[in-house]
């Protein structure tokens, strides 16, 4: 892998974003609207519930922000790829001396930058509007982020692989895939709410441990290392599977001439 080429590919995304209002909307507009919505829902629930659920604000707003980290990381990867498909630039990239690994690394890095920008904006806004301090989680925030980012990357790679295989018909998956997990991942409610059969699914999803962990840390101040370990292990598995799938699909694309199809259809 040539790091210089990775850097240039990252810079390329930065050039595209600098000029594109739509892309900037992706980074700021949606997350901000989501935060406003969840923020006021929370305030309302708190008022009618008269404190029946302690720390409701932190639970819901914290969950929303952390979910966005995962979602934006996935989007960062998939949309970067789709961008090249939409502007019919994919062939130019892959007939240049660029390795698939370099291309993926660049989408990873740019995805991280995007997440960073979104996260900082959301944290500032949540603090200003709802006195929610994301950093109250303290140290635990770091392992949470690591796990969310890895899962985001894994989902991004898997989505990209599927789009590579099925073409633009599968484009909608770019937005759908993370939400397939959301109901089972205990984002806004604890796993114990789910029926037992679904709890099994929940435990196979790495981010479940993050959201459970977040509530635990905010309520009791304890960080569960065993949960962290589980999440990390599952994540490594999914990321490995995702990368394997992408390499396979790229191979298949070369076999079936899909790169040309994807670019010129």
């Amino acid at each position, binding site marked *: 892998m040539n790091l210089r080429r990775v850097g240039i590919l990252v810079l*390329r995304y930065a050039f595209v974003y600098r000029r594109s209002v739509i892309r900037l909307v992706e980074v700021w507009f949606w997350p901000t609207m989501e935060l406003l919505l969840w923020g006021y829902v929370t305030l309302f629930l708190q008022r009618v519930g008269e404190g029946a659920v302690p720390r409701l604000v932190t639970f819901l707003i914290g969950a929303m922000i952390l979910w966005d980290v995962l979602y934006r990381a996935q989007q960062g990867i998939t949309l970067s790829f789709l961008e090249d498909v939409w*502007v*019919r630039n994919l062939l*130019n990239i892959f007939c240049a001396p660029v390795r698939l690994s370099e291309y993926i690394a660049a989408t990873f890095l740019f995805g991280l930058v995007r997440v960073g920008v979104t996260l900082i904006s959301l944290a500032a806004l949540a603090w200003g509007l709802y006195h929610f301090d994301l950093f109250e989680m303290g140290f635990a925030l770091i392992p949470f982020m690591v796990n969310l980012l890895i899962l985001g990357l894994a989902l991004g790679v898997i989505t990209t692989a599927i789009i590579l295989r099925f073409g633009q018909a599968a484009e909608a998956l770019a937005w759908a895939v993370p939400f397939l997990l959301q109901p089972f991942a205990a984002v806004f409610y604890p796993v114990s709410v789910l029926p037992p059969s679904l709890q099994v699914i929940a435990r196979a999803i790495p981010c479940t441990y993050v959201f459970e962990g977040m509530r635990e840390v905010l309520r009791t101040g304890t960080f569960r290392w065993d949960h962290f370990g589980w999440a990390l292990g599952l994540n490594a598995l999914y990321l490995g599977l995702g990368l394997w799938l992408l390499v396979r699909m790229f191979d298949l694309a*070369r076999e*079936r*001439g899909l790169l*040309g199809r994807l670019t010129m259809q």
Partner: protein
Amino acid sequence: MRRCEDAVLRVHELTKVFDGIVAVDRVSFSISRGEIVGLLGANGAGKTTTLHLILGLIRPTSGRIEIFGRDIERHRIEILRRMNFSSVGVNLPPNLTVWENLWLFAQLYGVSRAQERIAEVLELLEIAHLRDARTGRLSSGEMTRVNLCKALLNDPELLLLDEPTASLDPNIADKVRRLLRQIQRERRIAMLYTSHNMRDIEEVCDRILFLHQGRIIAEGSPREILEHFRTRTLEEVFIRIARSGEILVSQRER
């Protein structure tokens, strides 16, 4: 038979089957330094597939491709640094300027003195005034020229062009043909060129390969082809071949 010592590209018995469709069928040819070869054939004859195979974008079902004496499967990145490609169907990100796009590709190809090189190719294709225009705003002919700029950035030794003059007006098309000739003379680039414009082929190519249903069925210089078919224009040859698949392997020993 052409001597192959200075062959830049060597294709041997290349075959690509897509789901039972034979897109490229046991194609063999080579291109020497400084030679422009035209790939002609009806829609669906297998021209684009052949170019994509050479670029390593498609994996052959069987056969071998050697570029600069090396196997494309095993030395793809090294080889790609020394060649380039331009196609009508491929674009550049529309919200970047011409200069930004070219600069990024110059970096990807590891072009030294990128700024000067970009100025040079823009000048060459007479679009220096579009330097700061966003590529999304360009007319299709202007875009084609930007694509050609991209294809020339790394001073390639082998250039693959898929219908490079498809959207050019007659004046610019003429200039591009002259330019390709000039580059060929000055830098001795080898080119493989597809076009549906017979004028292009006659003026630019040293040698023509006629593809019909994935097979090379005629090969020779434009003049040899005309003599063999006893016609005055390549267009007539094209139509005859497209309709009947008439076979000529004039310059091949076999």
